């Protein structure tokens, strides 16, 4: 890998500064123990290409969570925190059950941003910090966020987390992964479907195989990799060869009633194994 790296100094491993891994593990344990009530699920068809303008006909990334396989161990939460440098939450917030976790346990199964095709949060964001990519990710541009918390108020499932505290200054955040910037105080954050991994894959692809279409093959989200039961499947809804489509075929697809008619990209699977 470093064949041509020359003088590159790989950014110093910052993971040593900040709270210890145990703190994160413990917080995840706490969160899993405080698992919130589940959704009432309704059956939906398999997600198709975005109906909004500018959607890509090739890619729409999403995830499926297999409720028959998941046992609610919470490893995905920890993996997500390590991949995306998600900070711990302050004592007071923790006491009232508020965590910064991008993945939460709802009724014993993980739930994160559903990356709705027509996302209510993006419609009300005054600055455009909450925006959509053509391949179906609901993204957050932290530098453009002014912290009006309108998106958070308008998210039907409360998937968005607000940085009430300056996590870096208060020693709550730890940089496990130097490919994801740390969020500053006063901005919203949420599951990005591991945007950075998709970007890196796409960029390398465009550099090495220009002219060939990129379908995001081989990309995995941290939670999907971490799941011991393989209950989380990431993939491209529009690519029939994608593991996601294969897994979702011949299964019943569900989404929470709150987002069912908002064209979610992240869904639940159940039955017909």
């Amino acid at each position: 890998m470093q064949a041509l790296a020359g003088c590159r100094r790989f950014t110093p491993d910052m993971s040593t500064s900040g709270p210890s891994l145990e703190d994160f593990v413990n917080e995840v344990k706490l969160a899993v123990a405080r698992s919130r009530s589940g959704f009432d699920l309704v059956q939906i068809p398999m997600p198709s290409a975005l109906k909004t303008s500018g959607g890509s006909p090739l890619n729409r990334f999403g995830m499926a969570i297999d409720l028959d396989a998941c046992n609610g161990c919470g490893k995905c939460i920890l993996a997500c925190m390590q991949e995306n440098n998600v900070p711990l939450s302050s004592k007071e917030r923790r006491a009232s059950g508020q965590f910064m976790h991008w993945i939460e346990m709802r009724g014993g199964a993980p739930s994160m941003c559903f990356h709705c095709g027509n996302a209510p949060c993006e419609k009300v964001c005054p600055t455009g910090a909450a925006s959509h990519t053509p391949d179906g990710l609901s993204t957050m541009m932290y530098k453009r966020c002014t912290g009006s918390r309108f998106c958070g108020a308008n998210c039907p499932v409360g998937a968005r987390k607000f940085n009430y505290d300056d996590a870096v200054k208060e020693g709550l955040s730890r940089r496990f992964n130097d490919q994801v910037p740390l969020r500053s105080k006063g901005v919203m954050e949420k599951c990005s479907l591991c945007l950075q991994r998709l970007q890196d894959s796409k960029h390398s692809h465009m550099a090495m195989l220009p002219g060939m279409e990129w379908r995001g093959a081989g990309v995995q989200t941290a939670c999907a990799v971490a799941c011991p039961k393989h209950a989380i499947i990431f993939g491209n809804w529009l690519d029939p060869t994608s593991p996601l489509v294969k897994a979702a075929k011949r299964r019943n697809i569900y989404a929470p009633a709150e987002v069912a008619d908002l064209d979610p990209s992240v869904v639940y699977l159940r039955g017909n194994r």
Partner: protein
Amino acid sequence: MDAVLNSLCCLMALGSSMFLWRTPRSVFKEGGLITLYLVLFMTFSYLTMEGSDATLEYLPLRMLALCICFSVTSIRSHKTRYLVMAQILWLWIEFFGGVSLVYRGLDMPWTRVIAIGSCAAGSVFMNHISREMEFILMVYWIAIWMFF
């Protein structure tokens, strides 16, 4: 909402409009009457419509607006101004109610909004309104209510 209920609403608005601004009354009487109508319309729409229908939320206000539109035709002085204002009130309710519903996934009642808007804009330029014109306006409003 089915046509029968719809026409029933229209009839209620028409009927109740008969008793507004008849004789020069105090703020109290008019205010009280309008409130009474509002409560009446609210109870009516609450009892007759199923709660799942989001358009229920502003039905009573729309009925009230229609009622006021009808009623202002009986005002003596500055009739034009009050006609315009009454229709703008109706437009206001329809448009902003519509906007809030658009963001919740329903679609905008554009034809209705445009019809009312154009009617309001048109009536700005009537400096004298004859009985016939009043009648035509009323028919037009009823048509808007029933069909758009």
